[in-house]
């Protein structure tokens, strides 16, 4: 990938403290731990992982919606530059015009007491982006048309709409202030396959027509495979593998990514499915394992994995893997494409 990064993340950590100081013990949840990545302008960047892996927290940290504990997040677009660590309240307001979030559940994300027009217009009014009501209405109508909403529906309330239509309203609201960067957090997880295909096509068309950049968070690997240009796999707050989509799915390096891919139920009933069984479940982030975080469930774990944490290093063109034995595992599996 040769394009310029829109978002640059370096050693980002987000820690939450839980439990009372009253009991004299304080637990720290390392939701995101020393993550570094670049999101190239105009691309769809996928982020996958099991629940509890820190995907959502990472997405929110990029919007400065959760406090950043350590590390840097920078945004740069055609001379406009923001450093999320050193940002005034005024800068943050400007930043929010450029970066927006699309939520998972279109039933919870829309206020039942506002009309569709008011819902879509709200960001414009709050950020004072328009000068008159006419101008606001015009922009609302323009974006509603782009999101294939019926203009006659603007006067109705959200309860009158199906899940797919609501998600389009939610997308229209995120896009109305002409942002450059969108975080789509599981935005198709609650939808049926047919509607899911419709929404994915819509988002892809915005990427192509308006040059938008997306961070696409999902637990569904087949959806990510179809939409994203580059994919990062997250486990217990850390990135374990980052690569172009084709590479990630067909020359997989990390044992966790392999296990995830092999667990996808394939449509072919006779597919020789070598499911790599993952024992147990994702450990608690309050008490993560020593060394490589994945060693408790990894079939290839050795002493070194328990003792030393692997760094995310380059293995092949633009392909990053955090595994001590990535080279050996590659050899054992030949093409390694278990999907």
């Amino acid at each position: 990938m040769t394009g310029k990064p829109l978002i640059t993340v370096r050693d980002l950590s987000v820690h939450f403290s839980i439990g009372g100081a009253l009991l004299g013990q304080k637990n720290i949840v390392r939701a995101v731990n020393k993550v570094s990545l670049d999101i190239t302008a105009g691309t769809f960047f996928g982020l996958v992982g099991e629940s509890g892996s820190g995907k959502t927290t990472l997405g929110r940290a990029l919007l400065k919606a959760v406090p950043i504990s350590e590390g840097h997040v920078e945004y740069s677009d055609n001379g406009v530059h923001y450093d999320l660590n050193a940002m005034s309240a005024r800068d943050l307001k400007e930043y929010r015009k450029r970066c927006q979030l699309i939520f998972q559940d279109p039933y919870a994300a829309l206020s039942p007491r506002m009309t569709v027009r008011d819902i879509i217009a709200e960001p414009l009014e709050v950020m004072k982006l328009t000068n008159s009501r006419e101008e606001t209405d015009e922009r609302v109508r323009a974006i509603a048309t782009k999101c294939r909403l019926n203009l006659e529906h603007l006067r109705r309330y959200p309860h009158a709409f199906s899940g797919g239509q609501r998600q389009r309203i939610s997308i229209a609201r995120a896009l109305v202030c002409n942002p450059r960067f969108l975080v789509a957090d599981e935005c198709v997880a609650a939808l049926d396959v047919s509607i899911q295909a419709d929404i994915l096509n819509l988002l892809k068309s915005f990427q192509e027509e308006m040059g938008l950049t997306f961070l696409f968070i999902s637990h569904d690997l087949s959806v990510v495979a179809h939409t994203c240009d580059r994919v990062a796999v997250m486990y217990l707050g850390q990135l374990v593998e980052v690569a172009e989509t084709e590479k990630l799915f067909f020359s997989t390096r990390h044992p966790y990514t392999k296990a995830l891919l092999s667990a996808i139920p394939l449509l072919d009933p006779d597919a020789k499915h070598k499911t790599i069984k993952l024992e147990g479940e994702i450990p608690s982030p309050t008490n993560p394992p020593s060394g490589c975080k994945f060693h408790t469930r990894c079939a290839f774990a050795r002493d070194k994995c328990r003792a030393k944490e692997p760094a995310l290093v380059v293995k092949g063109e633009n392909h990053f893997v955090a595994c001590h034995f990535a080279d050996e595992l590659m050899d054992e599996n030949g093409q390694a494409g278990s999907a």
Partner: protein
Amino acid sequence: MSRPLISVQNLTVRFRTDEGLVTAVDGASFELRDGEILGLVGESGSGKSVTAKSLMQLNAGNTSYGPESRIILRDDETGGEIDVLSLKKARDMKVIRGGSISMIFQEPMASFAPAITIGDQMVEQLLLHTSMTKRQASEFSIEMLQRVGISDASQRFAQYAFELSGGMRQRAMIAMALSTRPKLLIADEPTTALDVTIQAQVIDLMKDLVAEFGMAILFITHDLGVIAQTADRVAVMYLGEIVETGPVRQVIRAPAHPYTKGLLHALPRLDDLDATLTPVAGDIPSPLERPSGCVFHTRCPEIIAGRCEANLPEIASLGAGHDVACFAVSSPEETTA
């Protein structure tokens, strides 16, 4: 061929609501045999869960069943059969609920009582439905927990639902549902709330249990991939009607109904990353405004003008148990190619 375990004939379910009579299921018929896994797929609102709940009469009080609807359960004890819909009193339904049929739900956290231990809930139903003593019931429950792959079963037995992880809770739910030795297990989206790695574990477990206990499973899901990996036969529902049913290989490799084809084209596939996803055109109609004729004609790409809007397609057999209700594929010659 032996008698089917359960036979659903012409099931029609309507709900009386303030907006009028809503038809949730319209003339659905299917059969399930011992040891068979039948997958029931469809979009939300297609009537999958209502169909399943009808088998145990678990639908709400405003439900009315069609006069021609029959659900016939084979009764192995008397050699006769039970007409499920004719049972009116809760006491009579013991032969089904906790007897021949058990059900597991999507969200196991909502299905367990939060303030009673897992063990007490398992023991309670065994005391109600079997002649076990309390001690036998406890021992048997722990054995069942071990059987579904829960480690430290006796410790888990004494814990509450919130102390267990999502995958563990679903395993405990399955253990509880199977401990009364049902002949039919209804699984309503049992893996939807789980991560793929845990989903794979639960699917393997359910297949093992069918092999061991020999019960039949009605597996409800919206995920065709899950169906392909678990079910023997599949029934596709759209707006309360079963539009296509057949052996899972047949339906997925050679779908006959335009709706089934549409669902498969909308699904992202890993073997072809560059394929464009094609959504089924239009939106699913409101159940209050069910289309006339074939219910799918408003969105169908293969519509035959003048025919599909007016008439209801009959269910036609394509051979080998593959049935479809569509005018565009009525003659078997066209599809054998």
